[in-house]
């Protein structure tokens, strides 16, 4: 075990942002390695400033280093300038903690937060000095693992990753550590790699692709079946029942250079049952598990004192739904300080507009105002019923008014386009909503403005929309133009949109099967790394790769799936009954809403009943009232006419959700 620092140091003056590679964070650990320890290298396959704040990685980093039988270090994808220097100098991928070579670890475990990082995963494995394909790696090589939300469809990376963890990682990493530790103590003898992989496949929540046979029927997937009787046919996700038992990270890493979320983060609950049908996170992380308010306060107080931060983010998928949110924000902002200067800024990601009240706005604004983003997701009430984001225009205007009245000048509205059954009036309604928001703002300030951020919808596995055919880039681009022209010359609304071409590449990886692995490898071999960086993204490369592999974009991305089609992730269990998802998809098309089961009777999606766990919420009613917080009668939804009869795009030959 040697440090590569002396070889890395001379390269750093030549690269941009060298602080990405030095570690030195407050909270960094300097674990020792040894034959008795299972060593993990936790890898985030994107730049340091994006990967460092990742809470999942930090939680596992602490948990593993607390164990007497494990050690954990971290690595991030080196930017292209350092990568070139490393390849020239023959320097392998290294940890930022002790600058050890990645190849010296027992396990390299990747966090998969987005599909477009897949080519970076291959690049990191290659930079570690390993064969990218699992089958070609030898017994002594590190095991390659992966987890995170994208692991819920592991198939596109199945040829490269030895094992996937499905669901919450807190408990399962202990079991993996023990299994790999036992194997390590036998000396990783030649020919035993299959034995450890089979052992891992026996751990609940662990998927080992090599233990499954895949068969096809033409372009269709026929089956993914276990090779051995002791390997599970369905790999069910892991779920920690009580967040109170996991007050992590206790020592959040405080970086010495700027990162994307440079503040204290405290997870207030995990899971969400709002039931937004496009949202994978809300489907796969059920049920809702709130952290007790006293523990949240403790973690905030201790975290701020230790880190020196003056800003805290209360994290969850929908923080305003936290029981007692207004009191929590008030206490956090004040934090015992008696004067303005020492007040703590609170940022609330994922705020539902029906829950952003004047009260919450006033509490937040007592300190430095943090950026404010609301996500109506769709422009019209009709379409919001279809996606089950049941917030009314009045809800949005109320939230916007709360914000402007409490001193905000600017806010961001997030929308998706290319949603199922989306018609042009729905798309244009985005502009009307944004415009109406700025008019409310002008009652309070001349500087009132709104930024509209428009994302192309990519259907995700384990959601009711998993059967929906994604809009081609031309159609998404047309819808962006629709919004732009509907906005006219408004200088108060700034429109930003994600590259529609990138949505297509994301779509390939999102719902791809094992054959897509060859596409990812092709793109990587052609230099297609950092594909989520617009200056590095190239759809042409993906199209070329699909063609080279004999795969069709229409089949993988643009086509609607049928009820009985075998989906590539059918052998992965997110806890949701397949027929629940299908019925919710049919309800969506019929315009039926679905209430939040935290505060209304259970409709048995499967997430609780299959696992014998329950919601853990402190309040039996929605903090801000009503079913879905809107007070809307959900039963009237189906009176709104809805159609899913996509218009054929001239030339594209693929269905889209649009109608003219």
């Amino acid at each position: 075990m040697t440090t590569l620092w002396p070889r890395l140091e001379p390269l750093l003056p030549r690269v941009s942002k060298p602080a990405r590679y030095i570690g030195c964070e407050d909270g960094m650990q300097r674990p020792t390695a040894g034959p008795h320890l299972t060593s993990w290298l936790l890898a985030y396959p994107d730049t340091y400033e994006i990967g460092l704040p990742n809470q999942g990685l930090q939680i596992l980093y602490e948990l593993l280093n607390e164990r007497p039988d494990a050690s954990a270090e971290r690595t991030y994808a080196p930017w292209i300038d350092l990568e070139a220097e490393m390849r020239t100098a023959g320097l392998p991928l290294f940890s930022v903690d002790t600058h050890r070579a990645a190849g010296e670890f027992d396990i390299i475990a990747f966090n998969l937060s987005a599909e477009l990082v897949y080519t970076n995963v291959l690049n990191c494995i290659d930079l570690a000095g390993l064969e990218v394909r699992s089958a070609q790696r030898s017994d002594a090589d590190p095991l390659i693992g992966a987890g995170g939300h994208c692991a819920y469809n592991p198939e596109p990376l199945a040829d490269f990753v030895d094992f996937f963890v499905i669901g919450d990682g807190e408990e399962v990493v202990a079991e993996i550590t023990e299994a790999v530790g036992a194997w390590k103590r036998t000396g990783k003898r030649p020919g035993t790699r299959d034995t450890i992989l089979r052992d891992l496949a026996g751990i609940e929540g662990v998927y080992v692709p090599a233990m499954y046979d895949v068969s096809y029927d033409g372009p269709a997937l026929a089956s993914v079946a276990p090779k051995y009787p002791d390997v599970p046919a369905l790999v069910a996700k892991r779920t920690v029942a009580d967040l109170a038992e996991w007050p992590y990270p206790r020592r959040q890493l405080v970086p010495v250079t700027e990162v994307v979320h440079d503040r204290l983060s405290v997870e207030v609950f995990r899971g969400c049952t709002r039931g937004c049908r496009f949202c994978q996170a809300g489907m796969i992380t059920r049920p809702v598990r709130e952290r007790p308010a006293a523990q949240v306060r403790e973690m905030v107080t201790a975290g701020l004192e230790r880190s020196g931060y003056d800003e805290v983010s209360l994290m969850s998928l929908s923080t305003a739904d936290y029981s007692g949110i207004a009191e929590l924000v008030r206490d956090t902002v004040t934090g015992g300080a008696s004067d303005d200067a020492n007040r703590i800024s609170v940022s609330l990601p994922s705020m539902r507009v029906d829950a952003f009240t004047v009260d919450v706005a006033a509490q937040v604004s007592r300190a430095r105002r943090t950026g404010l983003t609301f996500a109506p997701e769709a422009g019209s009430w009709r379409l919001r019923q279809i996606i089950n984001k049941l917030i009314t225009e009045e809800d949005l205007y109320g939230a916007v008014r709360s914000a402007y009245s409490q001193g905000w000048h600017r806010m961001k509205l997030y929308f998706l386009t290319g949603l199922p059954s989306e018609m042009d009036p729905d798309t244009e309604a985005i502009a009307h909503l944004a415009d109406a928001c700025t008019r409310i703002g002008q009652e309070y300030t001349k500087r009132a403005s709104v930024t509209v951020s428009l994302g192309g919808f990519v259907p995700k596995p384990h959601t009711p929309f998993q059967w929906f055919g994604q809009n081609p880039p031309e159609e998404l681009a047309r819808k962006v133009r629709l919004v732009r022209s509907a906005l006219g010359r408004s200088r108060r609304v700034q429109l930003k949109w994600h590259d529609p071409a990138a949505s297509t590449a994301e779509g390939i990886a999102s719902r791809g099967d094992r054959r897509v692995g060859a596409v990812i490898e092709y793109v990587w071999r052609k230099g297609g790394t950092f594909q989520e960086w617009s200056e590095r993204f190239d759809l042409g490369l993906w199209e070329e790769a699909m063609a080279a592999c004999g795969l069709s974009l229409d089949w993988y991305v643009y086509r609607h799936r049928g009820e009985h089609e075998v989906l590539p992730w059918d052998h992965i269990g997110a806890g949701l009954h397949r027929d629940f998802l299908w019925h919710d998809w049919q309800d969506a098309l019929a315009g039926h809403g679905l209430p939040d089961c935290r505060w209304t009777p259970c409709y048995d999606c499967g997430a609780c009943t299959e696992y014998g766990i329950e919601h853990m919420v402190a309040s039996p009613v929605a903090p801000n009232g009503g079913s879905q917080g809107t007070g809307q009668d959900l039963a009237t939804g189906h009176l709104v006419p809805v159609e899913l009869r996509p218009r054929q795009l001239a030339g594209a030959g693929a269905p889209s959700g649009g109608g003219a």
Partner: protein
Amino acid sequence: MSLRLRVRFSKVGKIRFIGHRDVARVTERAVRKVGLPVAYSQGFSPRMKLSFGLALPTGYESDAEFVELPLVADAVRDGGAAEPGAKHAAGPVIVCRSGTHGPCEHGLPSAVPSYCTVAEALSEALPVGMEVSAAVLTDGRGPSLQAAVHSCGWEFDIVGLEATAAAKAVADFLAAGTVVTERVHKGETVSSDIRPSVEVLQVVGCSDRGAVLSAELSATPRVVRPSELVPALAPAHEMGIARRTHQWTSGAAGRAEPAVPAMCAQRHKELISG
């Protein structure tokens, strides 16, 4: 009287790769961790009002970085008069202990930083490689640190250059009337004569990389960096690591540094009694 706490710190080792803005951020967090009663700007986004000396290029080391922290009124009291456990609204009171570095004789709880423990506490709160060597009070009068510094002392090595070759290069350099070098400034290549900015230049030893040189380079009209000297001294070689050793200002008795460890007690006494 609006007092400022002037802090001298180092930047050595891995931490030399963080940028100037990063230094400001980690310093701000360290000040909050220690709980020093510093003043904030007014307005919607109150920020800590830190003022630094000359920016250090990313990748350079230093023994002589400076930052001034403006203190709130009444932030400093004489130790003899301090109430045990006294706290200012904006944080603990800084208590004078008249230059004694031993255990606190006033029986103050350890949570109240005394004047002489500020340096230790800040060092503890800063990343490894950033150590505070002096913390002195100033009255906040006079020019800013940036404006006051007229030259910097440096040590740097040149990779693969032997001491004898270095000595000859230095002699040639000093003998030359003008030394015109090129550098890229805002995307454009600019030529300038750096010879007038080099006040002192000598070979002082050898590191495991190559010859070590010491230099004093003026900060006006513009700051000349050691890396600009290397192409003129040894065009085929790269600079190794440069370390700033001093930042010089003009004092009453010739040149002086903004803060040195020994100044701590004396300056402080004068300010409190005056």
